[in-house]
């Protein structure tokens, strides 16, 4: 049995089902990120693990013990909230010690534990201050400290970085990752930021509409999205999704794409045999921006680089890269070119497409077909 196990857990408010049958098993030391847009059920699931919301049906267990009906205080979990939720009337040390005090830990041990964690997070100078006197980043640290001091089985993070400014967010992200590597704790982390999900997690559960759309390592989720939602949600800029038609040429399957000038582009599938069975079928082709490049920028290790000449609509220099927009199948498609590539809007330019990274979806079910 896994360390934290969610079995067929659902949540309904009256007739509204906000979380459908969910099964996730988390091993000890894992960093699971629940990611998805607002209202996808990720925060509800976290609250259910914390015991702040009841499980409508199914079961959640930690260390083999079913948590149904167990009070949040008795689950040996700690949670970091989006608003930090520091008690405004207590100073930092009291905030951190409050949970221990409530669990009947003697004052001496409390002080020792607080001092230890304060050193780990380098917040010793803040211990006497009230939360109102701290900056956002400091509050964030204290909130983590309050969780760490309890030494719980599972840490729960509810969008902990979303109230920080962009630069601080990146710093704190690194810090959380370091902390996880150092302490080897089990973490369930909720965010709507897919970059946070990819950088922090050992596994990601992408959620949408109350369903777990895909559960896998960051690489699996990024390279092999299970459906169009996952493909579009993960990655920035997001994956290009455009209509194409499967055809068979010389015994190998190819994707036929309508170009902006009315011509047709041909892209052979890397796995031409497997796709051959879909001959004649309309599909949605998914290719990430970094797999659409200028010819010199193409991945040299790939055996499936194919060239298409297409008209450039817009270029967006972004410092390290230049994003180049064209149209495939009537949809805007973004390619990630090298920064100093000489390309102008209106030019017809050779695009190098790495078909090893291409995925295909059914346009109706939006599920992956190859």
């Amino acid at each position: 049995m896994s360390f934290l196990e969610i079995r067929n857990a659902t949540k309904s408010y009256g007739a509204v089902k906000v979380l459908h049958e969910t099964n996730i098993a988390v091993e000890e030391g894992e960093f699971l990120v629940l990611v998805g847009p607002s209202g996808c059920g990720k925060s509800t699931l976290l609250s259910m693990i914390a015991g702040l919301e009841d499980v409508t049906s199914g079961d959640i267990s930690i260390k083999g013990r079913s948590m149904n009906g167990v009070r949040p205080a008795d689950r040996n979990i700690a949670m970091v909230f989006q608003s930090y939720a520091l008690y405004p009337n207590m100073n930092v040390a009291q905030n951190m010690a409050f949970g221990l005090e409530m669990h009947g830990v003697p004052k001496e041990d409390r002080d020792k534990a607080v001092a230890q964690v304060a050193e780990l997070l380098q917040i010793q100078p803040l211990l006497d201050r009230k939360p109102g006197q701290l900056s956002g980043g400091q509050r964030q640290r204290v909130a983590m400290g309050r969780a760490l001091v309890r030494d719980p089985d599972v840490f729960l993070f509810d969008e902990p970085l979303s109230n920080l400014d962009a630069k601080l967010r990146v710093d704190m992200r690194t810090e959380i990752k370091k902390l996880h590597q150092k302490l080897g704790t089990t973490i369930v982390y909720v965010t709507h930021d897919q970059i946070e999900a990819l950088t922090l997690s050992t596994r990601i559960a992408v959620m949408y509409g109350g369903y777990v759309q895909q559960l896998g390592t960051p690489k699996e989720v990024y390279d092999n999205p299970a459906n169009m939602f996952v493909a579009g949600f993960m990655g920035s800029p997001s994956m290009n999704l455009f209509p194409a038609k499967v055809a068979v040429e010389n015994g190998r399957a190819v994707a036929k794409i309508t170009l902006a000038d009315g011509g047709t582009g041909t892209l052979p599938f890397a796995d031409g045999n497997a796709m051959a069975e879909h001959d004649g079928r309309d599909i949605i082709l998914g290719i990430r921006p970094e797999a659409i490049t200028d010819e010199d920028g193409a991945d040299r290790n790939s055996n499936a680089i194919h060239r298409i000449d297409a008209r450039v609509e817009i270029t967006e220099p972004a410092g390290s890269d230049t994003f180049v927009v064209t149209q495939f199948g009537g949809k805007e498609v973004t390619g990630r070119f090298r920064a100093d590539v000489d390309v102008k809007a209106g030019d017809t330019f050779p695009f190098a497409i790495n078909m090893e990274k291409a995925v295909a979806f059914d346009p109706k079910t939006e599920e992956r077909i190859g």
Partner: protein
Amino acid sequence: MSTNASSQIIRTGSGARFVIYTILALFCLYYLLPLYVMVVNSLKPLSEIQAGGMMALPGEWTLDPWKSAWSTAQIGVAATGLKPYFLNSILMVVPAVAISTVLGALNGYVLTKWRFRGDTIVFGLLLFGCFIPFQMVLIPMARMLGLMGLAGTVPGLIFVHLVYGIGFSTLYFRNYYEQFPTELVRAAMIDGAGFFTIFYRIMLPSSGPIAVVCIIWQFTNIWNDFLFGASFSDFDSQPMTVALNNLVQSSTGVKEYNVHFAGAIMAALPTLLVYIVAGRYFVRGLMAGSVKG
């Protein structure tokens, strides 16, 4: 905050300013006049008032009217002064304010952070209680107090004011706690704090402004109440307001205006004191949550 405030002031020329301050000064004078009359006349012998010098400063300063009003004046049938009734009022107002404030805070806490089925109906009924006219409950309340054996006692008066006060104090605290982040309560739950621990360790310490508003409101209303005091008290449990009325009504022979003035100031003093001590929190508390920052 301070930079904000100064940027909101409209700058005016010195001429306009002179006019504004003159008008303000006149209004001040107008509103302070009754207080002046009361203070001045409470400090002069009766003969000076009878001579017709209501507005004049005392020719002979004396504290005798105050001493008389406090300890020797005729109230009803006994010449006790206002002292015992002042004590009655204190004995009534302190527990009534304290208990209704604490219960209001508890109600507000439950109605916002421990929602249950029908909580809005409960709150609606409590609110409704705020707006029931006092006169309507006199007879049923008299019957209730009789059944409880509290008729004509100070605890009976405390009970009546408590029942009336809870509606308002609940309203104040509920609206205040509505703004209070629920994540704090959830964090405390995970930390292992129970229902009452969260209340007095997390919620109450952050309730200063609204508690002040609630205390001032309750204190003023209960202290100044005349109707319940007159209806539900006996001679030995009458509050200050009723005794003041009796002082003024029961003077046989000459009306001792200077003693009446002194007694009236005494009756008003405690509320005045509460306003001065806690008043600056009053506006702050009433405005709390309405503006961010």
